[in-house]
Structures are given as structure tokens and as C-alpha cells.
């Protein structure tokens, strides 16, 4: 399944890219994060990221669909 992923902040720096389109066997954001964490050695644990699909926060066991845009939101620090 083809999924579009965008990266921000620490995850953008650790992956070395702002976005990518990738083929994955993962069916949920949690599964996809674990896959990407191995690939890019993300230091942020799964429990600390919030998953978003198509610019909406979702549970990390939500079922992904072909072409979804996934963003993993690490702990925020605005203001």
C-alpha cells in the first residue's frame, strides 16, 4: 500500500527528509511508525507520538487506506 508521510521537527531531522511516498505492509499508523523508527532510528518512542491521517488526529490503530497522508506528531512546544 502506498502511503504519503510528512515529517516535522525532530522526526524531519532524523529521517533527513520533509516528506516521502512509500510502500508499506503496515495497516495502521502504529505499525508504520515502528517500521519507520527502525529505518531512521527515531528517538521518539511510539507512545510519545500522536498520529494524524489527512490532517486529523486519529488513534494509532486506525486502519490506513491507499494514498493517505500520515504525519506523526512528536511532543509539541508552541508558545
Amino acid at each position, binding site marked *: 500500500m502506498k502511503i504519503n508521510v*510528512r515529517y*516535522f*521537527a*525532530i522526526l*524531519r*531531522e532524523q529521517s533527513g527528509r520533509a516528506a516521502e511516498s512509500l510502500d508499506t505492509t503496515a495497516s495502521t499508523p502504529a505499525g508504520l511508525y515502528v517500521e519507520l523508527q527502525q529505518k531512521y532510528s527515531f*528517538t*521518539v*518512542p511510539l*507512545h*510519545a*507520538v500522536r498520529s*494524524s491521517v489527512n*490532517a*486529523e*488526529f486519529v488513534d494509532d490503530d486506525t486502519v490506513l487506506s491507499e494514498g493517505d497522508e500520515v*504525519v506523526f*506528531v*512528536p*511532543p*509539541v*512546544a*508552541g*508558545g
Partner: protein
Amino acid sequence: MSFRLTSEEIDPPVLELLGAGGFVEFTGRVRDHNEGHVVLALEYEAFGDLAVKVGNELVEESKSKFGLLEAHVLHRIGLLHLGETAVWIGVAAAHRKAAFAGCEYIIDELKKRVPIWKKEHYTDGESKWIGCDGQEMSHESA
């Protein structure tokens, strides 16, 4: 839209509303130190689409929770130098108590919910995303 991100210098609007007796504004600026480090600059990055959505939900929620007549948030993104305004919040309510409480609620919740990240650049050449690795609590900037 009452929650806005901007890469330009923040120039706060003047709130005017005849039905409001209490106006409270909060300005968060870039401070020269944090956690024992001397800070040179701050870099803010946002997931724009979601930040605006979550920010506007927060503004609407705060208006109904505190009975605010108006509430506006301007948040800067990009590289900011010392003394520059990172965030401005302006609220108006019939009475002061609601205005103070609503303004504080918005900045507190913004820091927890809105997908904006902050990287501190220090004088020793180091830099760090604040609280972003999930290994520690995030820190106050202002």
C-alpha cells in the same frame, strides 16, 4: 479565522468591542536563557494545516468555556531572535475575570495541543528541539 500562523513579525491588532469591559493580551517573546543555557535564537516549526485546525478549535472552545466575546491568536513560525514576539493572544470579555482566565487557558492549552515545535539555538553552537523526543517534559518559553 481567529488562529493564525505567520512568518512575518507579529503586529498585534487593537481589539475594539463596545460590549467588552475586559481586554487581556499575552505576548510571548524569545528569552535569552533556558535551563542554564544562553539562548541565541528560537526556531518554530508547525504542521500548518493541523495547527490552524486545532488552534481554531481551541479558540472556539475557550470562547464558549469562558464566555469570551473575542479571542485571537497569532503564532510566529521560522527563526526568531531575542526579544521577538513568538505568540500573541488577545481576548475580550464583558468582565476582567473571564478575560484573564480565558487568555491563560489559551496559552496553556496551545502549548499542549497545537502541533508547533520549538528548537533552541545556544551560544555554544548546540541546538535542541524542546521536549520533542518524548524523554522529558516540555519547558516553558515565556
